[in-house]
């Protein structure tokens, strides 16, 4: 599961606002958050920039037992 929703909420952005900022439809943001759509690298970068973070933080899955 990616962390787009978590970071969007940290930034106090709605799906609608984030979608407007990155130039996509709200449904696309919803699909990304629910892991139902794999966004392109360019879109991932745009989302990361708007959310003030990086691609690893948003999309790299980290196992809980990894230490």
């Amino acid at each position, binding site marked *: 599961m990616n962390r787009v929703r978590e970071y969007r909420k940290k930034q106090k952005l709605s799906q*609608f606002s984030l979608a407007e900022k990155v130039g996509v439809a709200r449904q696309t943001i919803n699909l990304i958050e629910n892991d139902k759509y794999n966004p392109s690298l360019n*879109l991932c970068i745009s989302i990361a920039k708007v959310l003030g973070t990086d691609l690893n933080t948003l999309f790299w899955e980290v196992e809980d037992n990894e230490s």
Partner: protein
Amino acid sequence: MKVKETFGTKILKHFYGIPGVLDEHARQEVSRIGSNAYLMLVSYLLISTLIILLISIRHLENAFWILVFSNLIVPIYGINGYVLVATNRLHLDDKEVRAQNYADAVKKSVKRGIGMAVYFGTTMFLFTSITNWFIDGTRPIRTLTSIHEIVKWILAGALFGLLMFIYDLFRIKKFRE
């Protein structure tokens, strides 16, 4: 981030009835729907041509009329119907607006409905004047000045506009933040 839409993008959005942004996800889905529609259309063309060929051996005139009408019905109701259902299922045709902008969106739909009513009424009125001329030799000026025809197409335009407005209204989705 607003990206300027090219003419091609506008045409694509118009054909698939997408009111919002044609982003990468929408483009991917539109390509898939378009490929399916293409496969259906080519299959129809091959099968219908074969059937018409067989009918035309004995009934040439009937074959002609069957081909003309099936070529009108299959793309309009079959292929367009598929595109309409597929885009609707994926919510590509939703008009999402913020709750506070809902009234403005409804106003836009009313304006669109009026526009469609005028467009449909006028186009069909002019089209009828020409078809009447071809079918029974009625001069276009006679059709264009006939009160019966004018009233008929005003009512037809109003009904079409109303239906388009209702359809548009169902597509507007209120989004609360």
